[in-house]
């Protein structure tokens, strides 16, 4: 689960990670008040969206006065911010974070993540943080230092010290960096994070480390241990259709084509999209029915596909396994069509567990169905039908 910058900073505050003083605002008036509260000096007005590259996209402004801060907030709130990471539709800005600007002597990059390859936590740092770090790293202009933190036990103080030395830090700066690494490590474990990234981490004249920006990704699979963190999810940020699908044990994503896709299993689902595109068709959605989905969950998912006005034909590609036999999915199809009171032509290919039972059920539903013997045939048939229907 991705959370907003202001939420990440609030969580890090629990671990005494220093962040610039700031206030959240949801209106231009609120932003102006926030600037006055912060007192004299320049402030940052930062759009709160779940996407990076905000600075380049005009999502971050510096303001020298309450009036300018107000204008900056007015320009951001209610607009859709399009960054390199949001896609063309952009993200609606509902809040801005108004923060005091911190004078930094130098900016570092600092992150902890789960490194899948080694199965351990990995500490990553760069001498030169801030936006554009990917480009600088990719071009070889800077190298990132890494250190394995093992399985989440105690940190090795000597290793952390020599890691900080590799970043060129000495004295007070080194001490600040050591401290913040310890705090982030503790936060990472206690919050069940999969990524914490501070970019940039400012080092001030006094040698203090201040997190100017913070990204946290929390592990969805661990939210059962953190009911308080689960509440941080901003459900408005997620496509409501995709959100309801998640609640029904489905991975679902709207796409812009005209072939509604119903598949069980992520790998088979990806392969089905590949085949549709190879055959010259365009999928209306991605759907992976998880093995834990029951027929009513599946009916919900198929209902989402039927509701899509762009979908002209349904393509069902199912391999019935031990956990989810074919008849469960066909039953879901029947329920969905009955509930919606409408259907589309359906091209089906199903095989595996309870294939025969599924075929008997299908016959009872009396659908405009075409069953194919293999998946490539089913795909080409669905593509041809979609092209034939205007």
């Amino acid at each position, binding site marked *: 689960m991705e959370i907003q910058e202001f939420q990440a900073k609030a969580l890090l505050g629990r671990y005494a990670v220093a962040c610039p003083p700031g206030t959240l605002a949801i209106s231009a008036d609120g932003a102006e008040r926030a600037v006055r509260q912060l007192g004299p000096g320049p402030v940052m007005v930062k759009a709160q969206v779940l996407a990076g590259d905000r600075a380049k996209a005009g999502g971050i402004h510096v303001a020298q006065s309450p009036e300018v801060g107000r204008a900056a907030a007015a320009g951001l709130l209610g607009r859709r911010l399009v960054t390199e990471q949001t896609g063309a539709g952009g993200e609606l800005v509902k809040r801005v974070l108004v923060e005091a600007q911190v004078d930094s002597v130098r900016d570092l990059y600092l992150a902890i993540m789960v490194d*899948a390859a080694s199965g351990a936590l990995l500490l990553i740092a760069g001498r030169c943080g801030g936006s554009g770090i990917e480009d600088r790293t990719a071009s070889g202009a800077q190298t990132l230092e890494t250190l394995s933190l093992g399985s989440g036990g105690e940190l090795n103080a000597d290793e952390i010290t020599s890691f900080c030395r590799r970043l060129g830090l000495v004295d007070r700066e080194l001490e600040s960096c050591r401290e913040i690494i310890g705090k982030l490590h503790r936060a990472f474990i206690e919050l069940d994070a999969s990524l914490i990234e501070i970019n940039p981490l400012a080092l001030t004249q006094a040698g203090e480390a201040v997190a100017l920006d913070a990204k946290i990704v929390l*592990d969805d*699979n*661990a939210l059962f241990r953190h009911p308080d963190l689960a509440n941080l999810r901003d459900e408005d940020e997620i496509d409501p259709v995709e959100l309801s699908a998640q609640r029904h044990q489905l991975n679902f994503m709207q796409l812009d084509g005209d072939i509604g896709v119903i598949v069980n299993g992520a790998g088979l689902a*990806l*392969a089905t999209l590949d085949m549709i595109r190879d055959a010259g068709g365009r999928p209306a959605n991605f759907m992976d029915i998880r093995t834990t989905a029951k027929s009513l969950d599946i009916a919900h998912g198929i209902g989402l596909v039927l509701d899509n006005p762009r979908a002209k034909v349904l393509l069902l590609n199912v391999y019935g396994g031990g956990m989810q036999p074919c008849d469960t999915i066909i039953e879901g199809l029947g329920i969905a069509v009955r509930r919606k009171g409408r259907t589309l032509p359906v091209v089906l290919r199903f095989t*595996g*567990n309870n294939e025969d039972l599924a075929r008997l059920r299908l016959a009872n539903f009396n659908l405009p169905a075409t069953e194919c013997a*293999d998946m490539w045939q089913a795909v080409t048939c669905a593509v041809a039908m979609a092209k034939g229907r205007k």
Partner: protein
Amino acid sequence: MAILVGHDSRVLSQGMTGWAGTYHTNRMMQYGTRIVAGVTPGKGGTSHLDVPVFDSVAEAMRETRANASIVFVPPDHAARAMIEAIEAEIPLVVTVTERIPVLDMVRVRGALRGSRTRLVGPNSQGVLAPDMCQIGVMATDRARRGSIGVVSRSASLTSEVVKQLTDRGLGQSTTVGIGGDPVHGVGFVECLELFSADPQTAGVVLIGEIGGDEEQKVADYLRAAGSRKPIVALVAGRHAPPRRRMGHAGTLTMRGDGDAAAKIAALADAGVTIAASAHLVGATMHEVLAKSGLLPSAGAGKPAPVGGASFGLR
């Protein structure tokens, strides 16, 4: 011979007394797998599905000489169950459970380091040696004993590929699902090494997909070590919708999260034959074996006709 499992596999089932554990353990028994014990803390001394239930893995191993475990324990306690099995030094653990917290898996990986246990999974359909031993929840209807090893990140695609292989007269030595989670036990490379050393296996199908760096590691391994057995790979997700990037995901990309094109290029460069599409995996393996003169002699099955007219609802 198969890899990971065999005639001498004696399997205990952790979490057998739950609903999923009961259902799938029963299925495995019917397939012919020797299930010797169940483990559910607090239920020791009882019996379930006609096998004894123990409180701990160590006790079950002592009493039944179990040498493999399948884990059905729910996500909140699955890591504890795996670590218990690792500490009891059981040679093989297969974890079916989905949605285990990633930091729990980091701890499990810590327990695996230097241990005597191999872990398959989590979020895996398991290991199948057709007509011999099933430790998993996969479909078995189309699996036939033979000479092709299959290693995969996806359960449903494995079933599909197994069907295509069997339709072409190519049985399977073992199918292994390494699981869909980022932090997991055995990977593609370890399975390839095992298949390479397995006399029953003549060729290997590798079913990859976007995300992670398993396929890249295979390419690196093969460029260094080579392979005497033909390998056919499918990488699913060539046309996947781009995932929305969050934060400075470029850093993450740099740390190995290749797209399908990069994986396909790396594998092809390392001498792997790429199946052009998911429906062509069986045909591609058949062709590769035919070219190398490695096709099994008739009797293992005959090629099924490809395609056929689509038929309406009867």
